[in-house]
């Protein structure tokens, strides 16, 4: 199980329900594949720095989760197919410092929602491997 963080941007033209539905759909994919969702952070609608598929704005959402490596391929395949998703980026946290930061981010995301979740403190994984996984 690795720590991952996926950021994706939904189209600005969607209604609130559609946005929620899409977010639920993506989380569903994760859960089905045996990932453990730690937190979601909705950054909300913001201006894109450059137009993406002729969109000037986008709805940013971040999911923090723990999963095995093969889940990422499945997730990204789905994100690619989903026409409402205009951008996505998955980042893996491996090194000790990164994991510490990851936990902080998760805690922050949970705090914003005001959901006092149980503190997750996994045994620190080995300090190896590279960080980067995929590109948008």
């Amino acid at each position: 199980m690795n720590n991952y963080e996926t950021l994706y941007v939904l189209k600005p033209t969607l209604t609130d329900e559609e946005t929620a539905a899409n977010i639920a759909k993506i989380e569903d994919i994760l859960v089905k594949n045996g990932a453990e969702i730690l937190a979601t952070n909705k950054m909300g609608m913001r201006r894109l720095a450059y137009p993406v598929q002729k969109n000037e704005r986008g709805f940013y959402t971040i999911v923090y989760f723990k999963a095995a490596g093969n889940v990422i391929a499945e997730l990204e395949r789905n994100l690619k197919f989903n026409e409402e998703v205009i951008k996505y980026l998955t980042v893996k946290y491996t090194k000790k410092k990164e994991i510490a930061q990851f936990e902080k981010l998760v805690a922050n995301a949970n705090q914003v929602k005001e959901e006092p979740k149980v503190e997750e403190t996994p045994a620190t994984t080995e300090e190896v491997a590279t960080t980067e996984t995929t590109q948008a």
Partner: protein
Amino acid sequence: MAERRKFKKRYCKYCEMKVDFIDYKDLNLLKFSLSERFKIMPRRLTGNCKRHQELVTVAIKRARQTALIPYIVDRKNVVENPFELIK
């Protein structure tokens, strides 16, 4: 000579702030190392240490991929205040 040294050599801001990890979503941290045109500033001008420069480079590139900051700012679509825009 005075003109060549536009930026005086500085200490590493990230070291001073004791930053261990630079998150690509935290644009306030990235700002120090970006020029007006959103180029990555070289170490000799910002005074960043090597370790933090490497961290910030990765973070900036990720931020660009996710449209948080622009790749380029050109003359075709000039923005009044680019840093206002990204917030």
